[in-house]
C-alpha cells in the first residue's frame, strides 16, 4: 500500500459535540481513521466513546461538527446513511434474529428471489460465500443463528458487514463475551481486514488486546479527546500502557467527599468463595462494622452481580455468606431484608421506585410489616417515621402523599436510601448510589452514606465513578472478569493503580517485571 493513500484519512470527524440534557457527552471532538489501520478507542465508562460511535453509525446526530468520508462531507442522519457510506458497526449486543437461519440473517433486507418466490438455494450459497470471505467455513448457513456461540454469531455479523463492502468497521467491545480461542480467531480476521485496506475502530477496555491490535490509540475522558498515541510511527516500545492509563484517569480529586477517620469495629460481613457457578466469582472478602468498602472495576466486571448474589436477587451456586459470625442462606430479596441485608439497586426507575405511588409508600415499602398490626397499616406511625427519615435525609417533597415520580433524581435516590435505613440492616449494598443525580445531591448522599456507616452498618458500595470510590471508601476491591483482582486501602490508592488492575495491565506487567529483576 502506498504512503499517500495510507496517510489521507478514510473517515474524519471534525469538532463534534453532543449534549444529553445536562450532560455534555462529547465536546469538540476531532478524530480520524486511516485506511489499513486499527484505531483503538479507550476511556473509562461514560467517557464518550460509545456516543461518538453512535454518531458515526447514524444512531445519534451531533449538535455540531461534521463527518467526512474520503474527503467528502456526509450527513449521517440514520443508520441507513451509514450503510450507504459503507460504515459498519458491530455492537456489543448482537443484532441478529435468533430464530432465523444464518443464511436468512445474512440476506435480511436483500433476499434473493426468483420472480416472487424466495430463492432459498441461492440464499444458502450466497451465505456460504460470505462466510468464506471471513474464513468462517465451519458455520452451516442453515443453522438457526441463535444456536451458535456468541463468537460465531459475531463472525456472521462481520461477514454481513464485509459482504456489504464496508470501508469502515466499528467493533464495540467485541471480545466481551468471547472465549480465548474465539478471540484469537477474531484477531486474525481483524488483521486480514486491515491488510485489505479497511479502517477499523476498536473499542475495548482490555489493554492487552489493544496492545496486540492497535496501530493508534485514542483516549477519551469526560467527553473530550485527551490524546492519540501513534504506535506504528513511534514504535510499540516508545509508548507504555501506563501512559494510556494516565491519560484515561488524569483529573483532580476535589474535596467533595470530606474524608474523615472512621472507627472500624469487628467484621460484620464475611464472604467466602461466593460464585454464581458461571462468570462470577469465586470471590471472598470481609466488611467490618462502620466500614465503607467499594467495589470498583469496568462495566461488566461483575460488581453488580456480586451485590445481587449477596442480596438473593440471583441464585448462589456455591460459597458462604456470614453476617455477624453466623452463616446465612439468602433465598430471595425478602429473605435478605429479613436477615439484615439491604440493597439499593443499580437502576432507580426500573428496580427501586414505584413512580405512581406516594413518597411515603415508597419509603416504607420494605418495612410495612413494622407499621401494621395483623396486616392493617397504622398510618400515623408510618407518617411520623417517614417524617423523621425525610428530615434527617433532607428530602425535599411538598408532602408525603405526592407521587414519587414528581421528585428530582437526587430526592428519589434519598427515598430509596430512606427505605434501606428503615430496614436497619447489618449490611447495606449501594449499587451506583449517585448515578444520575446532580452534584449537590451527590455530596448529600455521601454524607448520608457516612452517617449510615457511623451507626455500625457494614457498607458495600458499587461505583463506576473512580474519584467517588477513592473519596468515600475505606477500602477498595477491584474486580475484573468476575473476580476480585486487587484489594487496596483507599487512602493510598490512586486512580492509575486502580485502572491498571481493572484493565489487566497490572497482571500483564508484573510477571514481566519479576522477570527483568535479578
Amino acid at each position, binding site marked *: 500500500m502506498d504512503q499517500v493513500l495510507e496517510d489521507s484519512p478514510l473517515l474524519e470527524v471534525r469538532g463534534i459535540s453532543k449534549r444529553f440534557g445536562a450532560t455534555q457527552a462529547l465536546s469538540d471532538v476531532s478524530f480520524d481513521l486511516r485506511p489499513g489501520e486499527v484505531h483503538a478507542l479507550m476511556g473509562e465508562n461514560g467517557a464518550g466513546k460509545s456516543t461518538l460511535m453512535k454518531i458515526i453509525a447514524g444512531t445519534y446526530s451531533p449538535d455540531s461538527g461534521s463527518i467526512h468520508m474520503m474527503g467528502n462531507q456526509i450527513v449521517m442522519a440514520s443508520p441507513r446513511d451509514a450503510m450507504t457510506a459503507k460504515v459498519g458497526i458491530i455492537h456489543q449486543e448482537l443484532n441478529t434474529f435468533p430464530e432465523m437461519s444464518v443464511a436468512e440473517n445474512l440476506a435480511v433486507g436483500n433476499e434473493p428471489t426468483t420472480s416472487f418466490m424466495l430463492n432459498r438455494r441461492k440464499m444458502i450459497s450466497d451465505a456460504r460465500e460470505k462466510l468464506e470471505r471471513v474464513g468462517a467455513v465451519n458455520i452451516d448457513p442453515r443453522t438457526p443463528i441463535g444456536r451458535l456461540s456468541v463468537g460465531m454469531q459475531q463472525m456472521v455479523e462481520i461477514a454481513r458487514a464485509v459482504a456489504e463492502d464496508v470501508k469502515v468497521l466499528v467493533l464495540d467491545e467485541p471480545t466481551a463475551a468471547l472465549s480465548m480461542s474465539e478471540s484469537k480467531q477474531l484477531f486474525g480476521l481483524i488483521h486480514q481486514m486491515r491488510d485489505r485496506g479497511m479502517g477499523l475502530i476498536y473499542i475495548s477496555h482490555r489493554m492487552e488486546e489493544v496492545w496486540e491490535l492497535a496501530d493508534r490509540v485514542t483516549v477519551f475522558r469526560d467527553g473530550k479527546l485527551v490524546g492519540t498515541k501513534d504506535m506504528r510511527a513511534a514504535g510499540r516500545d516508545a509508548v507504555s500502557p501506563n501512559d494510556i492509563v494516565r491519560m484515561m484517569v488524569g483529573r483532580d480529586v476535589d474535596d467533595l467527599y470530606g474524608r474523615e477517620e472512621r472507627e472500624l469495629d469487628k467484621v460484620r460481613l464475611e464472604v467466602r468463595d461466593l460464585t454464581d457457578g458461571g462468570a462470577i466469582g469465586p470471590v471472598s472478602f470481609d466488611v467490618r462494622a462502620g466500614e465503607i468498602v467499594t467495589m470498583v472495576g469496568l462495566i461488566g466486571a461483575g460488581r453488580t452481580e456480586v451485590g445481587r448474589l449477596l442480596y438473593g436477587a440471583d441464585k448462589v451456586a456455591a460459597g458462604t455468606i456470614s453476617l455477624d459470625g453466623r452463616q446465612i442462606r439468602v433465598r430471595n430479596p425478602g429473605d435478605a431484608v429479613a436477615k439484615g441485608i439491604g440493597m439499593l439497586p443499580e437502576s432507580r426507575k426500573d428496580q427501586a421506585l414505584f413512580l405512581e405511588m406516594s413518597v411515603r409508600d415508597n419509603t416504607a*415499602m420494605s418495612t410495612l410489616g413494622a407499621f401494621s398490626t395483623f396486616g392493617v397499616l397504622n398510618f400515623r406511625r408510618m407518617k411520623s417515621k417517614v417524617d423523621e427519615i425525610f428530615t434527617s435525609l433532607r428530602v425535599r417533597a411538598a408532602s408525603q402523599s405526592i407521587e414519587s415520580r414528581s421528585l428530582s433524581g437526587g430526592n428519589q435516590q434519598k427515598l430509596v436510601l430512606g427505605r434501606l435505613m428503615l430496614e436497619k440492616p447489618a449490611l447495606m449494598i449501594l449499587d451506583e448510589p449517585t448515578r444520575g443525580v446532580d452534584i449537590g445531591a451527590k455530596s448529600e448522599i455521601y454524607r448520608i452514606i457516612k452517617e449510615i456507616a457511623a451507626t455500625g452498618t457494614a457498607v458495600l458500595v458499587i461505583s463506576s465513578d473512580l474519584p467517588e470510590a477513592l473519596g468515600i471508601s475505606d477500602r477498595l476491591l477491584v474486580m475484573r472478569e468476575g473476580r476480585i483482582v486487587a484489594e487496596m486501602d483507599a487512602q493510598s490508592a490512586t486512580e492509575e493503580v486502580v485502572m491498571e488492575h481493572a484493565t489487566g495491565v497490572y497482571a500483564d506487567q508484573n510477571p514481566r517485571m519479576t522477570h527483568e529483576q535479578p
Partner: protein
Amino acid sequence: MSSPDIAAASAVPQKTRSILAQMGFWWDKVGIFAVLVLLCIFMSIMAPYFLSIDNGLNVARSVSINAILAAGMTMIIITGGIDLSVGSILAVSGVTGVLLFVAGVPSPLALLGGVAAGALAGFINGAFVAWLALPAFIVTLGSMTYLRGIAYSLLEGQPLISSDLGYRAIGNGAVAGIPTPVVVMVVVYLVFWFILERTKFGRHVYAVGGNMEAARLAGINVKKVLLAVYTIGGAAAGLAGIIFSARVLSAQPTAGQSYELDAIAAVVLGGTSLMGGRGRVIGTLVGALIIGVLTNGLVLMNVPFFYQLIVKGVVIVIAVAIDSLRRFGKSGT
C-alpha cells in the same frame, strides 16, 4: 419522560395539547363520578320513572353481580393482570352451590362451598400466573373455556331447578327494604376498599403492579401477592355465582357468559389502568353503576337492544380515551 412520549406529544399541535391537559385536570378533580351524575340527570329528564326509589333499587340490584365481579377484577388489574374467566367461575360456583344443597349439605355450607370453588379456580389461575410466569390473558382465556366445560359437565348440559334453594334469600331477599344482593355488594366494596387502602397487602398489590422488579427487590413476595389476588378474585366471582343462582333458583351452566367484559369495562371506566399500579375500587363501583344506569335508562326510553349495545360500547371507548388523554395531558405539561 421516555422517548415514545416525546414522539407522541410532538405529533399533536400545542393548542390541542393544552386543551387536553385542561380536560385532564378537570377529569382528575371531579372524576368519573360527575359522569354518573350527569347521566342520571339526563335519564331523569328523558324517562321520568328513572328517578324513583323503586327504579333506583332496581338498578342497584341489577348491577350488584357485575359490581362484585368487578371488585375482584380491579385488584387483579392493579397488579397488571387480567381475569377473563370470572364469568365461567361464576357458573361453576353457582352450580357447585346448588349441587351441594341438592345433595343435602346444609345451606350455609353449600353457599361457602360455592365460594370456595370460585376461590380454588382463582387459585389455579394464580398458580400459573405466579409460579410459571405465564401471561394472565392466556391462562385465564384457557380457564374461561375449561371452567365453562366443567359447569356444563357437572349438570350434563342441563339447568338444575331448585325452587327451595336454602340460601335463596341472598338473591331475592331484602334487608331493611334494600335488596340483599345490594347489601352484599356494599359489604364487598367496603372490604375491598379496606384491603387496598388500609392494609400492608394492599400496598403490595399496588407495588407489584407498579413495578414488579422493584417490588421483588424491595423484599415483597411477588408470587404470594399474585396468588392471593387471583384467589380473592375467584372468591368474589364465586360469591357472585351464589347470588346469581339464588336469584334464578337454579344452577345454570350458561350463567355469566361474557360477564368478564362488563366487569373489565366497569374497572376501566372507574379509572384503573390496564397497565397496572394505579386504580381505585370506588371508581370501579361508579363504573359499574354507569353501565347499569345506561342499560336501565335506555330500556326505560324504549331504545331497542341493539342500539343499547352501540351506546354502551361507545361510552366505554370514550371514557377510556378521556382517561388516556388525561395521562397524556399530564406528560405534556
